[in-house]
C-alpha cells in the first residue's frame, strides 16, 4: 500500500468533519473520492497533505506514519497536493512557479527532466513561460497547479476539484492530462464533485457522506450502484 488512512478524525476547531475515515491507495492506482458538497472530501486531502492536523487516526505513506507532520515535510515525503484554490505564486512567472515546485529537488539534471516532462504534458504552459501566473485564465492556472505539483517528482498526486470553475472543454483537457499521467504510472487520488465524470475515469472510488465513507468499490460498479445513482445522479 502506498497510502493507508485508518480511522481518521479531523476538523476545524470544535467542528469535526471527518469521522473514522479509512481508505487505501495502491501504487499506480487512480482513485476517486466523491461525495456531495460539504461531505469532507477536501478536508480529507488537506489532512493527508499536512495542512490540517488530524484529531486522531493514522495516515501511513510507504508504511511510515505521516499524520501530524507539517505540510512542507509531507511534500518532501513525495506527496504533491493540488488544491482547489491552486495556491499559485501569482506574481511569479509560469517558469518560476514550476521551478518553485521543484524546491525540494537538489539534483539539477532531475529538475530539468521534470520541467521537460511537465512542458510535454501541458504544451500550453510553454507558450506562457514568461507570463505572470496571476494573469492567466482559469484553465491555464489549473494546468500550472498540476504541473507545479508534478515538478517535485511525487509518488502520489492528490488533486482537489480539477473541474471547479472551468468551462466543460477545459475540464475535459485537464482530465485528459490526468489520464495521460495515470498511463505513465502515476498514482492519483482525485476529489471531484462531478461524480459521473470522476467514476468514468478512475479505477476505484470511495463515496464520502457527512464525513463518513459510505461506499467503496470499483468505479464502474459504483456508477451503477442504486444508492449512488439516487443521491448523486438523481436517477
Amino acid at each position, binding site marked *: 500500500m502506498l497510502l493507508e488512512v485508518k480511522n481518521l478524525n479531523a476538523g476545524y476547531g470544535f467542528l469535526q468533519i471527518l469521522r473514522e475515515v479509512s481508505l487505501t491507495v495502491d501504487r499506480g492506482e487512480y482513485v476517486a473520492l466523491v461525495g456531495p458538497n460539504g461531505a469532507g472530501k477536501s478536508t480529507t486531502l488537506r489532512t493527508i497533505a499536512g495542512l490540517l492536523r488530524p484529531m486522531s487516526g493514522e495516515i501511513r505513506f510507504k508504511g511510515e506514519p505521516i499524520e501530524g507532520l*507539517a505540510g512542507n515535510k509531507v*511534500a518532501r515525503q513525495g506527496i504533491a497536493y493540488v488544491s482547489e484554490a491552486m495556491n*499559485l505564486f501569482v506574481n511569479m512567472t509560469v517558469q518560476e512557479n514550476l521551478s*518553485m515546485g521543484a524546491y525540494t529537488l537538489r539534483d539539477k539534471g532531475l529538475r530539468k527532466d521534470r520541467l521537460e516532462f511537465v512542458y510535454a504534458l501541458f504544451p500550453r504552459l510553454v507558450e506562457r513561460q514568461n507570463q505572470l501566473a496571476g494573469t492567466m485564465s482559469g484553465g491555464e492556472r489549473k494546468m500550472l497547479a498540476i504541473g507545479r505539483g508534478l515538478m517535485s517528482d511525487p509518488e502520489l498526486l492528490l488533486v482537489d476539484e480539477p473541474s471547479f470553475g472551468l468551462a466543460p472543454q477545459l475540464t475535459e483537457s485537464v482530465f485528459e492530462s490526468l489520464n495521460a499521467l495515470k498511463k505513465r504510472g502515476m498514482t492519483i487520488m482525485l476529489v471531484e464533485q462531478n461524480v459521473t465524470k470522476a467514476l468514468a475515469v478512475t479505477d476505484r472510488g470511495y463515496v464520502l457522506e457527512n464525513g463518513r465513507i459510505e461506499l467503496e468499490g470499483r468505479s464502474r460498479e459504483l456508477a451503477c450502484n442504486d444508492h449512488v445513482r439516487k443521491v448523486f445522479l438523481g436517477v
Partner: protein
Amino acid sequence: MWKIEPDRLLRWLKSAAGISILTAVAAAAMATMDRGPHVLVNAVVMGGMLALVSMGLALVFGVMNIPMFAHGEYFMIGTLVAYYVFTPINTHISTHPDSMLSALGPLITIVAAMLVGAIAGVASEVLVFSQLRKRSRENWVMNSFLLTVGLSVVLINGHQLFFGADFKGIVRFWSGAPFSILDVFISRDRAMAFFLAVLVVLSFWLFISYTRTGRAIRAVSQDETGALMVGIGLNGILMLTMALSCALAAVAGASLLFMYPSYPSVGLEPLYMAWFVVIIAGLGNVLGAVVGAFIVSLLKVLTVEYIGSGWDFVVPSALIIVILVFKPSGLFGSEVRGILDK
C-alpha cells in the same frame, strides 16, 4: 528580455508609477538648476539609506504580514552597536593614524551592527512573533501590530535604562578631505553611506530574485499555503526574513551614526519616513520601496529647501492622504496583492 517595446513603455509612462517617477525626476532637475546641486546630492544620499529601512519594512509586511512599528528600534540598535564598536577603534586611530583600522574600522563597525541587528531580529521572531503565531492566528494583523508597538516601547526604554538618554555620537567615520562633484562638497561619510546603500540594495535584490532561498521568501509572501505545498519550511523562512530586515535597518542606523547620534528614540524619524515610503510604494512591495524611498527623500529635501524645515513631515503626510484617496493600493501597488486579500 530587455527589449524596449514602445507600447509597453507608453503604458508604463501613463501609469501612476511612471507619472510619479517622471515628476520626481523633473522636480529634482528643476530644483537642482534653481538652488544648486546640493539638493540632488542630499536627496540621493538620504534616499539610499531610507531605501534600506523601507525595504526591510516592506519585506516584513509582505512576507510575515506584520505592520512593523518597532522597525526604528532596529535602526537604533544599529546606531548603538556602531557607537560602542567605533569609539574604541576611533581612539586607536587617533593615536595610530596610519594603521589599517582607519580604513577598515568603519566597515568592521557596520558589519558588527548588521550582525547584531540580525540577531535582534531572530530574537524578536523567536521570543515574540512565533509565540503569537503558535497561539492564535486570528486577527493576526491587529495583534501583531500591537505587539510591535509594545516591543518598540520596551526597546526604547531598555536603551534608556541601560545606556542612558544622552546623545552618543561620533564626529565622522572616515577622515580626509571631502569629495567634490558638480561643485558640491560631499563629505566622505555621506559618499560612503550612499555607496554602501547601493551595494546593499543591489546585493539584496540579487539575493531575492535569483537565489533559491530568495525565491522561497517571495513564494511565502505570495502564498503561504502554496509555499508549504511545495516543501518550503515556513519557520526558517520567517526567521530569515526577520533577520534580514532587521539587519538592513541596523546597517542604515550604523552608517548614519555621524548624522544621527544614538539616543533612545532615534528610530522614530526613520520609522515614520519608512512608513511614508511603504504606503506610497504599495504595502509589501520591496522593489517599489526602493524607488519610493528616493521620491520621499526628494520630497523632504525640497520641502526643507522651499517651505521650511518644520514642514518636512507635513508635506509627505499630505501627499500620502492624496495618494491613498486616488490610488489606495499605492503607486506601485498594482502588482502586489493588497492586505485585504490575504
